[in-house]
């Protein structure tokens, strides 16, 4: 009898799993259940090309429409998975017969964290789906004024896109700089400058005290007494993982669906990938839930490998990028951690890579307009090599060729391996 896989969620992680299964020659049935009406699409362009109207919904499709048929993958759109029964091994949906599975992949992603300010619903925007972005791009007209609450990655990319469209932008951020939690205060301050140079009114260390709808827009009163009057408010306050389905099924969840190094959840034959997966990372020896596109892709491929019986640990070094204005930011690994910092290039030139080392091992890197160095550093992070800081510091040295000493991974150390 053919083995069956049901994937709940049609985002990057779900599709990567389906692709990975067929790439690996899996010949069982694959069904993808997505509560969106649109065929699976890429989310990164939603804050950039799509918002700027340089891309249309059809351009965002992860795979062409015919891919599903060609690869014998059943795509059920507009269908919500309402329950998972781990005893009968079925997914119950809002429509039609339950879907039996041998392997279940939870790829339910997340939803924007809501901030209730008591404003009229038509003045408040979030950004997660094509529907959200379509609504938002209708208000991004030249001369309009949009306030963005939260200068994380989504808020920052959105600000850059809006400015390029001639929209007035005010950013309101509780921390001292944009993206401070991830990139730290030094790089964050650089992005404050970049946004200001592009005409963004950047209000940091402050938050909305109270808000009211005016006749045409929104009036925000900040806790430092400033008043912001704007046409619309976009809230970029992070996301909440969609764990409800998994939690109700009795799967262990803690800030996401808990999965082991092989991306297996707490029941046999059940996996989680992408934004919803709280993964026990074998390289970093920590439980990490990562909201980056690349992670969803790689985790999906790893789950596919494990479904076909390869027993592979997922040890991706977590690389990601963000494009804002004409700047390309990239990072990998444990940014801002470790006991030692090495800078290659210069922050003032806005062309640099920062490396974080722990016991001499590169554990993380972040670069601005130096993508190649970060991509090269991701290999060093994966390999857990002790690297000479002078090699890291010297921009003339190719990071593919630095001399280094291999170290054991956390799981290898636990197993008592020697090298």
């Amino acid at each position, binding site marked *: 009898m053919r083995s069956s896989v049901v994937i709940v969620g049609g985002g990057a992680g779900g599709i990567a799993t389906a692709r990975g299964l067929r790439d690996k020659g899996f010949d069982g049935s694959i069904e993808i259940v997505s509560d969106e009406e649109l065929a699976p699409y890429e989310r990164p362009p939603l804050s950039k090309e799509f918002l700027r109207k340089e891309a249309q919904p059809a351009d965002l499709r992860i795979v062409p429409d015919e891919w599903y048929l060609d690869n014998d993958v059943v795509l059920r759109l507009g269908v919500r998975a309402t329950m998972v029964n781990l005893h009968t091994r079925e997914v119950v949906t809002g429509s039609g017969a339950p879907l039996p599975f041998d392997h279940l992949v939870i790829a339910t992603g997340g939803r924007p964290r809501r901030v209730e300010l008591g404003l009229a619903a038509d003045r408040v925007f979030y950004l997660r789906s094509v529907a959200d972005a379509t609504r938002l791009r209708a208000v991004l007209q030249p001369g309009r004024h949009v306030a963005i609450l939260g200068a994380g990655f989504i808020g920052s990319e959105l600000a850059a896109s809006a400015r390029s469209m001639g929209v007035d932008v005010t950013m309101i951020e509780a921390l001292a700089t944009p993206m401070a939690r991830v990139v730290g205060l030094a790089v964050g301050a650089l992005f404050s400058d970049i946004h200001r140079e592009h005409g963004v009114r950047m209000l940091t260390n402050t938050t909305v005290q109270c808000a009211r709808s005016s006749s045409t827009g929104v009036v925000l009163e900040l806790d430092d007494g400033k008043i912001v009057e704007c046409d619309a408010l976009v809230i970029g306050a992070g996301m909440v993982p969609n764990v409800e389905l998994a939690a109700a099924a009795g799967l262990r969840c803690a800030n996401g669906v808990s999965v082991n190094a092989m991306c297996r959840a707490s029941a046999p034959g059940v996996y989680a990938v992408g934004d919803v997966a709280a993964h026990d990372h074998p390289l970093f020896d920590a439980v990490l839930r990562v909201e980056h596109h690349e992670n969803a892709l790689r985790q999906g491929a790893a789950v596919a490998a494990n479904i076909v019986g390869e027993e592979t640990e997922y040890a991706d070094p977590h690389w990601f990028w963000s494009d804002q204005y004409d700047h390309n930011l990239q990072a990998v690994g444990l940014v801002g951690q470790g006991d030692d910092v090495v800078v290659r290039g210069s922050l003032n030139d806005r062309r640099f890579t920062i490396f974080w080392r722990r016991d001499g091992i590169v554990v993380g890197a972040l670069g601005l307009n130096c993508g*190649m160095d970060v*991509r090269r550093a991701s290999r060093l992070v994966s390999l857990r090599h002790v690297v000479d800081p002078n090699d890291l510091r010297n921009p003339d040295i190719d990071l593919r060729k630095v001399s280094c000493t291999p170290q054991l991974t956390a799981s290898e150390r636990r197993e008592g391996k020697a090298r």
Partner: protein
Amino acid sequence: MTEYRVAAEADLEPLGLKRVDAGGRPLCLARSEDGTWYAIGDTCSHQDYSLSEGDVWGMAVECPLHGSRFNLATGQPDRLPATVPVPTYPVTIRAGEVYVEVKDRFPPD
């Protein structure tokens, strides 16, 4: 088909990349780790960016912007986010000079 001289053999070491022009068409000239020469279209199929700014990893060139990888021999993407291949062109070395053969401009290949 038209053949263009695009570089000298000494211009590129193994793992090297160079943007060259073949009759108005930007190409990414590349050498894999074993020194073999390749030429592919220089523009990443994911987003308009020069692949010759990137890196050679094994048999692939990697775009520095978002990490898409293309097989040097086939042009096929073997790493997302790119899903569309880039064109490939035959390379010949004669007397220390590097030649690339491209189809004539129209119809475009």
